């Protein structure tokens, strides 16, 4: 697929949606948690992992996916869910723990399942990798050309499941793409102090698959790398590993003081907001500011509406806790 202007505008739009989603979460998360921050309180209790800065990874990859292609994501799932087309109202409702959420409020922000677009995520590092291989193998065995993509963080690439699933996917020639979002940190631990080599993409050679490193947190470059890898998978040529250099503009979770960052690092990151940069690029490429303004406004409205919907939605009944444990 060629990187068309339509495609670029789609990526821009989805990045804006994602960022606005997080921007609406931020104040909501702190509701009820003031003056003393208490994670248990407010409409959004529990941990909250935001995607600010990592949007290019999601849009560049998901631009190539159909609803029947599967995606498994992580504890930091919002940008990917949105790019994959997860129902926004049901997703927002789930994060607010409402009865009409994706799983009726049972899962929350780390456990978003949307069967219609074959999206799921989980709270355990690298847990989604096996299921992605499984979705890919199911398609392959059924003679379909659907593919699967497993997103993980760079920290997850040191978990045993990474190794096992890459090897298995390669041996079975599974139509799957593994995407590592390298935001340089696993919570407070830097990639440099946790990972033996500089680039996880170079680990692909241990599995006889292509390994592609995408620098610059650039949607267009992600798009191109993902296009090739997904085409490869779709045409039966097997798995690939992509590592994307990205940035985490917020703390690991909300409330993280980020004192582990070297001085000045965060400020430097803030000057590299990928959405701002992409907007500038689009303008330089001749897209009028007003076109972009309209896209932004529409995208934001969509998210705002989803949040409004979520907030108006009913809470689950306490007894719902007991249902759907078993099918």
């Amino acid at each position: 697929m060629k990187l068309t202007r339509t495609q670029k505008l789609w990526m821009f739009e989805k990045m804006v949606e994602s960022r606005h989603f997080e921007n609406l979460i931020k104040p909501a998360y702190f509701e009820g948690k003031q003056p003393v921050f208490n994670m248990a309180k407010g409409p959004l209790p529990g941990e909250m992992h935001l995607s600010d800065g990592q949007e290019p990874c999601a849009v560049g990859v998901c631009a190539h996916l159909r609803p029947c292609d599967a995606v498994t994501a992580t504890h930091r799932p919002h940008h990917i869910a949105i790019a994959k087309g997860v129902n926004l109202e049901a997703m927002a409702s789930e994060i607010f723990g409402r009865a009409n959420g994706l799983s009726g409020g049972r899962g929350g922000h780390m456990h978003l399942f949307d069967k219609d677009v074959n999206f799921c995520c989980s709270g355990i590092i690298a847990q989604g990798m096996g299921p992605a291989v499984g979705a890919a193998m199911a398609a392959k065995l059924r003679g379909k050309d659907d593919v699967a993509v497993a997103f993980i963080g760079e920290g997850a690439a040191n978990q045993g499941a990474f190794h096992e699933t890459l090897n298995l996917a390669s041996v079975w020639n599974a139509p799957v793409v593994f995407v590592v979002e390298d935001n340089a940190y696993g919570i407070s631990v830097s990639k440099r102090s946790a990972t033996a080599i500089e680039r996880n993409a170079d680990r692909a050679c241990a599995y006889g698959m292509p390994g592609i490193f995408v620098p610059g947190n650039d949607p267009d470059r992600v798009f191109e790398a993902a296009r090739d890898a997904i085409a490869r998978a779709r045409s039966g040529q097997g798995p690939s590993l992509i590592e994307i250099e990205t940035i985490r503009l917020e703390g690991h979770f909300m409330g993280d003081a980020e004192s582990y960052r070297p001085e000045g690092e965060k400020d430097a990151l803030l000057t590299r907001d990928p959405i701002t940069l992409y907007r500038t690029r689009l303008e330089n490429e001749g897209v009028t500011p007003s076109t972009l303004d309209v896209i932004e406004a529409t995208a934001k409205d969509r998210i705002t509406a989803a949040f409004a919907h979520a907030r108006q939605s009913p809470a689950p009944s306490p007894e719902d806790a007991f249902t759907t444990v078993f099918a």
Partner: protein
Amino acid sequence: MEKKRKLTIAKAMSEAIALEMRTSPDVLVMGEDIAKMGGVFGNTQGLLDEFGPDRVRDTPISETAFIGTAVGMAAAGMKPVVELMFVDFFGVCMDAIYNLAAKQSYFSGGNVTCPMVLMTSVGGGYGDAGQHSQTLYATFGHLPGMKVVMPSNAYDAKGMLAAAINDPNPVIFMYHKALQGMGWLGTVQRSIVHVPEEHYTVPLDKAHIVREGQDITLVGLGHTVHLALDAAATLESQGIDAEVIDLRSIAPLDRDTILASVKKTGTLISVDDDYHSYGVGAEILASIAEQENLQLKAAPKRISYPDIPVPFAPEMEHHVLPNANKIVSAAQRILKVGEHV
């Protein structure tokens, strides 16, 4: 009279899988040494020949990967049957089992199910030491979202495995090495029974009264059902009429059947070969103890495996495993004590 088809549990299992594979293209089998070798414990014999390598897949020694893969297949509507060769190996892949497979339905609010069967061998008694002889029933039974079952004979094995494969939920299908019918492990002959050729199912949530009796209830599962039956025979010769229950399922636990039996007999011994503390017997005794207005004629007892790793030397291993004699003595003591109350 109908000709008897006496099968081992191993054979009954492979037959059950074959029947399901013939019926549905969604059923496939994966695990270590399950294709060419037909399974270290023989329960996938013949499947590779009939169904080919796409549907009968040997895996690398990567339990986390292939169980996770099975969950993904199950989410996509396939019905994978996977094997964890020994239950003792659960430690390398429990996340994929208890946190992934077992919670998929709940986390998705029932939208994504997990029709996966995990077959796994349990049990010791043959000198394989502490990392190849465990049973871990309670380890699995304690964690929600999965069914945990184990047959005591080939008839149940075939019917329960058929039920498990067609269950929309993850089912941990344990099979006990002492009953498996692999020549090289010795086998309790009573587990080798007539198995109908056709398809049938045995429910996964019902305990089975394998011997009716009036004086005491003996509850076992898998291998210990046979120990209980042996004990019941001895007790009968001493005028004690024991009822023997085969749990069949650890989760869900059929408390109703146990309770009804205990109401009749007035007391109980649970017998299992898993670790003692926080084990099978604990749950059974507690389920009885918390009944209001239930007066027993004697305190119940549990016979289990002690809280120690499984030792290699037979002198030690057989000393600590449950056996029929221990059940007989316990029953005698309980009922004598009972008389004095």
